[in-house]
């Protein structure tokens, strides 16, 4: 079945020089099926209008497309459509939470927001394997409120070191923010255990679901997290769209960050009142075409089935790991048992940039660099790595082409 899906993705027929393309960079951004591309065309050619503001027929159709996107996403990750707030990307979603807490700490949002207020006696806990998007905003929040920033370390196997969990996440902890799946190591983190500890100390849980939602069945209500974030572009959807998901009671209480049109009830020159979620976080004209396209993407994912996607990618991940183990001079970063089909590695004597360049010359697209996780790379004693990440359109043939090319890298650079 999965090899048939490949035909739905027109870009996979592109040739790189003389080679066919093996796209193993879906961890950065995914490719789009034709139906998602078609939705753009259809939207702009037939339904484009500003939403929520007009009596005319196009505006009604555009509004429908926009609100149906929320229904689709709630179907994907659980909860009700009102729990789905649109953002420009996952980064904005995480910032909205961190900056909303900052504003609450400074007295914005009235009584209702006081539950979020942080001060120097409080702590925020993250992990050493976070993407910068789930790290820098918390640094900023700590700097602004005086709260202490702590983190859970990472073991050699690329898993969270929970041996000190009880002392790191303690009674002072107000926020525990962590990634569901590492974008570098592919490790799946034990959400239940972390949520349980957060509940025990009364901390809010913020889940970075960028690398989980596209690759496995995820239900935020079952995981019982308070806030979660992910991006459409990593899940067959368009660029320019992310999702902030939250418990309604919390979303309605969190002070908004970006303010302006369409998120207010009344505006006077002196001051304004804000709408409840999701509109509260959706100031200005929204990425409407993108939402329509993402609804199509979510439908496509649902049709394939995320459990099948997960199983397929695990298999590919196995092929990659087994194959790499046969090639001398390559060190894989981390070896967690619970993982998605993403593998990052260091090639002895050849810099990641050069590895990526060689693979590209063979039509194999991978990512090189720190993958927006500098602290994690430092943890493994490198500044950069090469990462191969799979998705539903990848095949065993992609893995084979990758492994063949990878085996040639050290000889090419004269280090083997």
């Amino acid at each position, binding site marked *: 079945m999965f090899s048939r899906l490949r035909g739905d993705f027109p870009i996979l027929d592109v040739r790189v020089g003389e080679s066919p393309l093996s796209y193993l960079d879906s961890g950065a951004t995914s490719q789009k099926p034709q139906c998602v591309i078609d939705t753009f065309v259809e939207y702009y050619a037939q339904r484009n209008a500003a939403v929520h503001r007009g009596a005319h027929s196009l505006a009604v159709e555009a509004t429908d497309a926009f609100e149906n996107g929320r229904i689709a996403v709630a179907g994907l990750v659980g909860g009700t459509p009102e729990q789905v707030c649109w953002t420009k990307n996952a980064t904005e979603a995480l910032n909205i939470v961190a900056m909303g807490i900052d504003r609450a700490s400074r007295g914005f949002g009235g009584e209702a927001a006081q539950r979020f207020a942080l001060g120097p006696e409080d702590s925020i806990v993250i992990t050493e394997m976070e993407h910068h998007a789930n790290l820098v905003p918390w640094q900023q929040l700590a700097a602004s409120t005086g709260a202490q920033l702590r983190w859970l370390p990472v073991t050699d196997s690329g898993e969270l070191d929970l041996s000190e969990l009880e002392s790191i996440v303690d009674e002072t902890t107000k926020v525990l923010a962590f990634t569901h799946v590492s974008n570098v190591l592919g490790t799946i983190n034990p959400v239940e255990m972390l949520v349980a500890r957060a509940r025990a100390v009364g901390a809010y849980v913020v889940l970075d679901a960028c690398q989980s939602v596209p690759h496995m069945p995820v239900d935020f209500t079952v995981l019982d997290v308070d806030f979660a974030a992910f991006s459409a572009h990593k899940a067959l959807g368009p660029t320019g769209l992310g999702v902030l998901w939250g418990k309604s009671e919390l979303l309605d209480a969190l002070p908004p960050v970006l303010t302006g049109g369409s998120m*207010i009830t009344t505006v006077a020159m002196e001051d304004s009142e804000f709408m409840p979620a999701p509109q509260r976080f959706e100031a200005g004209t929204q990425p409407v075409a993108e939402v329509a396209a993402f609804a199509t993407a979510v439908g496509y994912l649902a049709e394939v089935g995320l459990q099948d996607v997960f199983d397929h990618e695990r298999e590919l991940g196995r092929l990659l790991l087994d194959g790499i183990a046969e090639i001398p001079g390559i060190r894989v970063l981390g070896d967690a048992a619970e993982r998605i089909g993403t593998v990052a590695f260091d090639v002895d004597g050849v810099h990641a940039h050069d590895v990526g360049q060689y693979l590209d010359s063979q039509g194999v697209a991978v990512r090189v660099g720190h993958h927006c996780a500098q602290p994690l790379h430092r943890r493994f004693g490198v500044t950069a790595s090469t990462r191969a990440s799979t998705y539903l359109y990848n095949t065993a043939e992609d893995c084979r082409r990758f492994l063949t090319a990878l085996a040639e890298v050290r000889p090419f650079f004269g280090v083997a």
Partner: protein
Amino acid sequence: MSTQMQQLYQQVILDQSRARTGNTALLRDEATGRHGCSHQVNPTCGDEIELEIELLDDGRIAVRWSGDGCSISMASASVLSELAADASVDQMLQIESAFHELMHSRGTMEADETILGDAAAFTGVSKFPARIKCALLAWMAFKDALNQAQAAREENHHA
């Protein structure tokens, strides 16, 4: 003229939007019975309504409102006021729930005139998603104000 427009703007609606039954000064704290007051805004178009409910001793409800909005929202408040003049609290809640369901039917439901009375004239509105909020504005205020009035009565009972 399209028939959709005729369905939307029934003569009843046009008439009621001018009649504005119940559109009178609010009594606020001068109301003698248990009362509640709700202010509802439709943020997209700026329509607003302030609606006051008073629970009378004979089990009936007095409705007073002031507002500014389109013909659909004004007619809806007017019809609501007329219905309230002849109905018990329970009957009004039944109407409210039937009206709510009708509005969200997207034109797929027949209105039950025996329950809805003149409010059945709003059937056509349900085909215009952007206007549903207009028709519901007064009813949202009604429910909210009624809750307040009932809560006030409860308090009284326990006091």
